[in-house]
Every structure is written in structure tokens, then in C-alpha cells.
């Protein structure tokens, strides 16, 4: 037997299905079930990582046809560097999260059986891998549904809470509206590829070869983009995301935010660059504008949150926006036949895909560790956890620094590449784009700075200061498997930040295949150290030297200043002489974001009330002050509420047919038969 990337990936998927089959057999001992199944998923993910890395590194393209499915419509599977890259992203995070789950899921022991969670977890990962491997519309949609259904049940896992059931319902509705759009898009492309004569057009190969007329290609693109945008949580189709991601178990939230959204990015890249291939500039402009709107709105909504996992979920909207900015720029450059700049935009977007998977996975795992220890998601009740959970705090901080785009960690590298792509936009021949595209760079800068503010808030309120809650729980540090998963993710964030050239050289083949040019980020001596897209005199960045430089100065200053030991004293907090300072007087999440809420408040639907309950004797010294704040998504009222109301109205109208009497139904059947006889003679 010859081991190839495809062989490794198929065994990975098969191993996941075997784990599903094994689970009911060993569900008697839940502890054993957790240990076994998550070890097996880790092994499967490791196989996936090896296969994916190999496929990209070797530039392999391999196809197999599975004779299952409908007769004469077999399933096609194909691995190429683009697919291999997304397989690597998915499998790498799945590996870390599976290790983490060995510890995290044990928190459910004695509370509820986890058999269904394990089954859906395996199906979920298998579904994501199959989406990326699929090479025909049928298999793609089947895998897409497996992924959506499995994640629906995972969101529903703790189904005794009404908000979980509502979130899961909203999620499945949006997922299916999106899936219908994707189905229609494939229908357009397959129909034109097979001339509406037969089903032969359903393979991606046939779609690649077909030359679509412009108006049909546009229809296919808009449908596919709508469908994938619904899955990715692009504003204004994002409302399900902050509802569904926080209520799922945290390991699942990590996978949903970290990698499930990326399958939609994969879909967008696959459909536009590979299947359609030739497009006008305004497609790229649509992607770019929606990317910018998502990035800014996502981070502003995140700033308004005080639920740690909801905050992270809104940051996924932001980061999907940043990824789409890179891809949109790449599409604009491609349409003007500027392959090198297109490669820069595409690599920036794809690199951010990997980076976001790592740091968002890490952050959700960290939030899960906090939830596991405190049983609390509301940041207003937290504080001071750095003393009791030092590992989690340090690792969560690495995630915060990475997502805030601060060097030398990974988020900065991809944002820096995106900025470079923006700065090269004056080379575009279109005057309008030349003037307007650089303004996008300012919005990206705003996003980055607001993200930093948001993560100062998230980390500061959760881990620093004093515990804010009324009663103090017994908090224990995360156990070894949880720490292992987080340490690996944090180490990856760091390596992706200091060694970006190695990774970009590895993935450069994708840009060569899709845009026709390699980026070649590294040139000259010690080339692995310097990230130089385009040309060294244009711009360069070295994460390695930034890290070593800061480290050197910090260590030198520390050593110089610690010649004299024992000069540190501990003392109680200075309370300005009032002696009444307590932990409720600290800044919390709501007060931290107050200036930003005031400045950007016009974007939200905000209701704020302060009520004084006076004392009878002293009306000027209130007994109590009640503060009420509600921040709502404006899109809900503008876009969703009308749709919901219209569908309820229509259902009520149609519902009148349901009389509940057998005679009425017999009449309906009778009328139907008559109508059919009349019209289909």
C-alpha cells in the first residue's frame, strides 16, 4: 500500500466514523468513553495534519471516486494544495481541541451523559474534513449538511436552557437558508456545465471547464457568496453566531468559531478563484466592503458584551471580516490581472484564516477553562483569576495579544500583510478604487485598535483586579489535558508570529495555482528571518528580531535593576484614606466600554436607565441606584424582525386550512385530484 496524502486523509475520516460506531459500545463507562474517543479523534486529527501539510508542501493533486451515493452519481474526492491548507487548519485545531476535551468534557461527568456529544463531535470534524475534500456538488452538500446537523446538536447539547434551544433553532434556520443558496449556485453552475441535459455537470471538474456567460456566473457567485456568508457570519447575516457559539460546550465553540466558519471561506475561495475563475472587479469590491463592515461592526458589538464567550463570538465576525478584506483585495487585483498583488492579498487572507483558527481556538479554550472552574460566563462577576489560574491566565493573555494584532505574535503578521496589500492599491488602473480603497486601511486600523481595547477589557476584567462576584467559588486551575491543548495552541500562535516566512513559503503554491504568481516573501541571506513581500525596499518585518530585541532589553533591564535584592515591599491598596474600598468599586466590563459606547452609540439600539430609590429621611442620599442597560443589534429590527413577522403572518393564514376535521381533508384531496386531472391530461 502506498501512503499518500489522500490515503492519510481518508483514514482520518474513517477513524472518526469508527469512533462514532465505537461510542455506543463503551458508553457504560463515561470516563473511559471520554478518554478513548477523544484520544482517537486526536489521532485522526494528527493524521489530517500530516496529510494536509504534505499535500500543500508537495503540491499534490490527487483524486478518488467513491462508488457510493446515488446510482450513476458517485462521490468524488480530491486533494489539492488549497484543500490541503484548509485540512491543515481544521485538523490542527481539532487536534488541540480534542486533547483539551479529554479534560474539559469530564466536567459533565455525573451531571449528564456525554455519549451524544462525543458522537456529534466526531461527525462534526468528519463533516468539515469532507466538505474540504469534496470534489462534486452532491458530496459537498451532503458533507455540508452533516457538518451543520452535527453542530446543531452540539449547540443543543445543554437543551434544558431555553436560550440554547432558541439559539440552535436560529442557527439551523440561517444555516439552511445559506445551504439553499449554495445549492442553487451549484445548480446554476452544474446546469450550464452539463447544458441542462444530464447530471454530468455536478462534478467540480466539469464546472471548472465550463465557460459561464457573465450574467449566469454573476448569479452563481452572488448565490454562493450569500450562502457562504450566512455560514461565516458576515454582517448582516451574523445574528445567529453570537447566539449559537456561546451556548455550545466550549470545546465545540472553539471548533465552531475557529474552523467551522473557515469552511465558508474555503467555499468562497473555491467557487470564485477555482470554479468560476474569471470575474469583474466589483465582485471583489462586494467582498471587500462586506469584509470591512463585518470587521468594524463585529469588534464594536464585541466591545458591548459582558459575556465572555459572546464577546469572543462577536470577534469571530470581526476576524472573518479581516479575512474577507484580504480575499476581496485579491479578487480586485486578480480582475485587473495583477498576479503578484493578488497573491499578496490572498496569502494575507489565508494566513489570517490559520491565525484566527489558532488564537480563537485558544481563547475559547481559555474561556472554557474559566467556565469550567467558576461556572460563570458573565465577566461582571469575575476578576482576579490570574492568582488562582496562572496557567490559563498566561495562555489566555497570549491569545489576547495575538488577536489584538500586536507583534511578535501571529495576528499582527496577517494584518500587516493586509495593510501592505491596501497600500499597493494605488497601482490599480481604476480611479474610483484608487481613491476609495486606501480608506479601507483606516477602517482596518480602527478595527485593530478597537480589538486591543476589547481584549484589555476581556483580560483585565476576567483575570485582573479582585473577584467581583458576591460569593466566591472554589476555583481550581485547569487540569493537564486542558492545559496541554492550550499550550500547544499558544505555541503555534507564537511560531506563526516569529516564523511567518517558513509558513508562507510552504503555502505559496496556493497563490501560484489560484492567482498565477508566487509571493516569494523571503529573499537574501538569513531569508527565513525577514518577511519581505514585493521588495525589501518596499517593506519588511522580522518577528524574530522584534521578539529577540524586546526580550534582550527586558532581560538586561531586569538583571541590571536586580543587583540590589529584597527591595520590594507588599502593602494593602491605597484607598485614598476612605477605608471603604470594596471589590464592587472596580471598573467592570460595562464601565470599561462606556466611552466607546458613547462615541459609537449611534450604531446600536441602546436603552439606558438610571433609577434612584430615595431614602425617606434623606431624599438626597439614595438607598439604592439601579442601572439598566440594554444594547441591541440594529440589524435584528431592520432585517430579521420583518421577515419573522411576515412568515408568522403567512403561517397563520395557511394554518386556517388545518380544520382538524376529516371531511375537510377529504375535500382537499378531492380538489387536488380534480385539479391534477384537469391540468395534466
Amino acid at each position, binding site marked *: 500500500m502506498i501512503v499518500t496524502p489522500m490515503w492519510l486523509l481518508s483514514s482520518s475520516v474513517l477513524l472518526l466514523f469508527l469512533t462514532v460506531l465505537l461510542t455506543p459500545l463503551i458508553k457504560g463507562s463515561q470516563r473511559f468513553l471520554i478518554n478513548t474517543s477523544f484520544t482517537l479523534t486526536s489521532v485522526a486529527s494528527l493524521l489530517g495534519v500530516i496529510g494536509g501539510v504534505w499535500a500543500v508542501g508537495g503540491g499534490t493533486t490527487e483524486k478518488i471516486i467513491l462508488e457510493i451515493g446515488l446510482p450513476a452519481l458517485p462521490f468524488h474526492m480530491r486533494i489539492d494544495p488549497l484543500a490541503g491548507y484548509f485540512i491543515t487548519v481544521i485538523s490542527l485545531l481539532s487536534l488541540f481541541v480534542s486533547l483539551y476535551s479529554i479534560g474539559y468534557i469530564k466536567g459533565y461527568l455525573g451531571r449528564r451523559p456525554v455519549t451524544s456529544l462525543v458522537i456529534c463531535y466526531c461527525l462534526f470534524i468528519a463533516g468539515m474534513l469532507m466538505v474540504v475534500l469534496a470534489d462534486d456538488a452532491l458530496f459537498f452538500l451532503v458533507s455540508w449538511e452533516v457538518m451543520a446537523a452535527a453542530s446543531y446538536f452540539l449547540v443543543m447539547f445543554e437543551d434544558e436552557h431555553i436560550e440554547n434551544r432558541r439559539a440552535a433553532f436560529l442557527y439551523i434556520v440561517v444555516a439552511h437558508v445559506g445551504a439553499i443558496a449554495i445549492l442553487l449556485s451549484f445548480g446554476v453552475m452544474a446546469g450550464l456545465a452539463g447544458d441542462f441535459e444530464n447530471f454530468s455537470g455536478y462534478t467540480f471538474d466539469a464546472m471548472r471547464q465550463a465557460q459561464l456567460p457573465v450574467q449566469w456566473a454573476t448569479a452563481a457567485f452572488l448565490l454562493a457568496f450569500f450562502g457562504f456568508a450566512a455560514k461565516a457570519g458576515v454582517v448582516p447575516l451574523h445574528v445567529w453566531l453570537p447566539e449559537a457559539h456561546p451556548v455550545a460546550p466550549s470545546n465545540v465553540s472553539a471548533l465552531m468559531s475557529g474552523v467551522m466558519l473557515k469552511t465558508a471561506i474555503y467555499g468562497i475561495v473555491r467557487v470564485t478563484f477555482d470554479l468560476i475563475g474569471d470575474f469583474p472587479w466589483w465582485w471583489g469590491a462586494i467582498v471587500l466592503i462586506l469584509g470591512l463592515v463585518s470587521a468594524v461592526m463585529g469588534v464594536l458589538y464585541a466591545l458591548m458584551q459582558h459575556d465572555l464567550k459572546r464577546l469572543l463570538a462577536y470577534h469571530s465576525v470581526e476576524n472573518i471580516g479581516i479575512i474577507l478584506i484580504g480575499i476581496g483585495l485579491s479578487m480586485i487585483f486578480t480582475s485587473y490581472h495583477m498576479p503578484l498583488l493578488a497573491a499578496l492579498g490572498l496569502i494575507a487572507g489565508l494566513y489570517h484564516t490559520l491565525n484566527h483558527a489558532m488564537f480563537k481556538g485558544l481563547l475559547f479554550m481559555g474561556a472554557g477553562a474559566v467556565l469550567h472552574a467558576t461556572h460563570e460566563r458573565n465577566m461582571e462577576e469575575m476578576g482576579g483569576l490570574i492568582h488562582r489560574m496562572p496557567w490559563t491566565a498566561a495562555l489566555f493573555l497570549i491569545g489576547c495579544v495575538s488577536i489584538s494584532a500586536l507583534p511578535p505574535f501571529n495576528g499582527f503578521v496577517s494584518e500587516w500583510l493586509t495593510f501592505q496589500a491596501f497600500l499597493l492599491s494605488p497601482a490599480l488602473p481604476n480611479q474610483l478604487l484608487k481613491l476609495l480603497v486606501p480608506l479601507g486601511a483606516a*477602517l482596518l486600523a*480602527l478595527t485593530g*485598535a478597537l480589538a486591543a481595547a476589547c481584549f484589555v477589557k476581556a483580560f483585565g476584567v476576567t483575570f485582573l*483586579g*479582585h473577584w467581583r462576584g458576591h460569593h466566591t467559588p472554589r476555583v481550581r486551575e485547569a487540569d493537564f489535558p486542558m492545559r496541554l491543548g492550550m499550550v500547544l495552541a499558544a505555541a503555534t500562535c507564537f511560531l506563526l508570529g516569529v516564523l511567518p516566512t517558513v509558513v508562507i513559503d510552504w503555502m505559496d503554491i496556493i497563490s501560484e495555482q489560484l492567482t498565477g504568481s508566487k509571493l516569494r516573501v523571503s529573499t537574501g541571506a538569513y531569508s527565513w528571518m*525577514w518577511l519581505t513581500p514585493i521588495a525589501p525596499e518596499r517593506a*519588511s518585518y*522580522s518577528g524574530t528580531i522584534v521578539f529577540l530585541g524586546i526580550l534582550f532589553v527586558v532581560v538586561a533591564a531586569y538583571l541590571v535593576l536586580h543587583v540590589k535584592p529584597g527591595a520590594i515591599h507588599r502593602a494593602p491598596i491605597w484607598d485614598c484614606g476612605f477605608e471603604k474600598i470594596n471589590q464592587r468599586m472596580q471598573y467592570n466590563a460595562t464601565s470599561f466600554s462606556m466611552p466607546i459606547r458613547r462615541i459609537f452609540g449611534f450604531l446600536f439600539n441602546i436603552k439606558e436607565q438610571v433609577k434612584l430609590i430615595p431614602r425617606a429621611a434623606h431624599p438626597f442620599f439614595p438607598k439604592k441606584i439601579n442601572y439598566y442597560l440594554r444594547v441591541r443589534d440594529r440589524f435584528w429590527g431592520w432585517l430579521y424582525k420583518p421577515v419573522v413577522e411576515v412568515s408568522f403572518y403567512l403561517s397563520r393564514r395557511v394554518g386556517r386550512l388545518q380544520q382538524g376535521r376529516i371531511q375537510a381533508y377529504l375535500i382537499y384531496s378531492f380538489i387536488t385530484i380534480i385539479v391534477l386531472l384537469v391540468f395534466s391530461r
Partner: protein
Amino acid sequence: MKTYPFIIELLQIAILLGVSPALTGWVRMMKCWTQGRTSPGLLQPYRDIMKLFSKDVVLADNASWIFRFTPYLVFGTAVLAGGVIPMLSIDLPIASTADVIVIVALFAIARFFTALAGMDIGTAFGGMGSSREMTIASLAEPAMLMAIFTVSLASKSTSLSQMVHVIYSGHSLFRPSLAFAMIAFVLIALAETGRIPVDNPATHLELTMIHEAMILEYSGRHLALIEWAGMMKLFLFASLGIATFAPWGIASAGDIGFVPASFLIMMLKLGAAGAGLVLIETGLAKMRIFRLTEFLGSAFLLATLGMLSFFILE
């Protein structure tokens, strides 16, 4: 490999460490003169730093490692930025480590950790300072990048050495886009270095302080490092402005004989920048915090105008 770029590099860091308190002293001294007070002299910041270094550190009971690590990190990022911004010569071996976007990000790291340190103790002042600082920064950063992008459009590079080189050997001395970008840069530099009208470095009045509120709990050598890094930040922003908008006098590559003259020119320009700062600070009052959106918004508009005028006029 030539050795003299490394000597210039070390020289530049030595100047940054050594001269930055003098710049602050110069600004304070002139501020005293303009306000009719007697000044403590140019060397007072040195004496302050020496005094703080010799004192013991008092930490609050629940201060975590973040609180103790932050001063060193803030100091480290300032020194690294000083190694990248061309002050004496554009021939810096580590200049290609960081372009101007990275320099903005280096200041952002320092700010991120200072804000965390402000929240670490759990007093209301610290959180208030952190919240305000991050709000102002998030408004200032887009304007800052727009101003710098406008300059980089002309030089077709974001590498500072390259920008200096291009403007130095440029055909037109004065471009309208650069004028707009420079005004925007000055406004943002006032915000970033915490000067009037955005923040008052001399106040400890509860409701107005921003940067001082975050570092209120620091003492001893930690405070010395933070104060020193703050002085370096003022120095670096002045140097960044000089390198971007008035680079004449910075030695070009290989021109080692010009370095002493370049040092003198740098001191003159810094002195002039300090005088300009004093005029602004004396002439204006501190703004209310929610007026700052207008202040930074106009900086952003000016930078955007600069960019548009580049496309339309040049």
C-alpha cells in the same frame, strides 16, 4: 560586513536613553518660563529618575506578574523603536526589522500592557485610565496610519529609512499632501504622548488624568522605568515626525563623516519641536474627554485630505 552601522545603531540608542530626559526637561523648563515660573532646570528629569531608581518598590497585595513585567516591556519596546527610527543616519542594521506600521504596533504593545497593569490592582482609577487610554488610542490609530500612509504613497515604501531616503532625494521639497499629513501627525502625536489638550502630564486630578491614572500605583524602579520610557516616547514621536516630514540633516548611507553634524542638526530640530510643543500646551486648555472625538476626527480628516490631494494634485 561593515561595522560602522552597528556603531551608529548603538550610538543612536545611547542618545535615545541619554537625551530623552533632557528633551522633557527642556519642554518643562520653557513651559515654566512661558508661565512666569522659575524652572527647576534642564537636568531635573535626570534627578527624578535617579531618585526613583534608588527607592524601594511598594507593591499592592494583589499585584500580579503583569504589574511587575509591564515596566520592563514598556521600556523594551521604546528602546527597540529607537533602534529603528532613523535619527542620525539611515544606515541602521535593524531598520528593516520594522517598518512604520510595526513601530505603531510597538507603541500599541506598550499601551496594551500599561492598560492591563492599570486594571491589575483593582482600583477605580486604574480602570478609568485604562478605559480612556484605549478609547483614545482606538481613535488615534486610524488617523496615525492614514497620515503615515499618505507619506508612504509618495515614497512608495513603508520602511522609514526608505521614506527618508526618497524625501531626501526628492524632486519637490514641498508637497501639499505632506503638509496635510504633517498637521494630522502633530495632532495625533499630542494624543499619543499624552500632552495638552488631550491629557495633562502634570496633573493628578482624579477626573482629568488618563495616562497618570494607569500608572498611579507604581513606585520605585518600576516607576522610574515607566517615566523614562514616557520621556523616550516623546523623543521618539519627535524623531518620527522629523524623519517623516523634515528629514534634512540625517546622514545618508555610507556618509559617516556627516554623523557629528547630523547630531547637531538633530538637537536643533528637537529643540524647535520642543518649543512648538510648549507653544501648543501653553496656548490651549485641556479638552473634555468626549470632545476628543472631534479633535481626533479632524486629524483623521486632514490625513484623508492629504491622501486625496496626493491622488488629485500630484
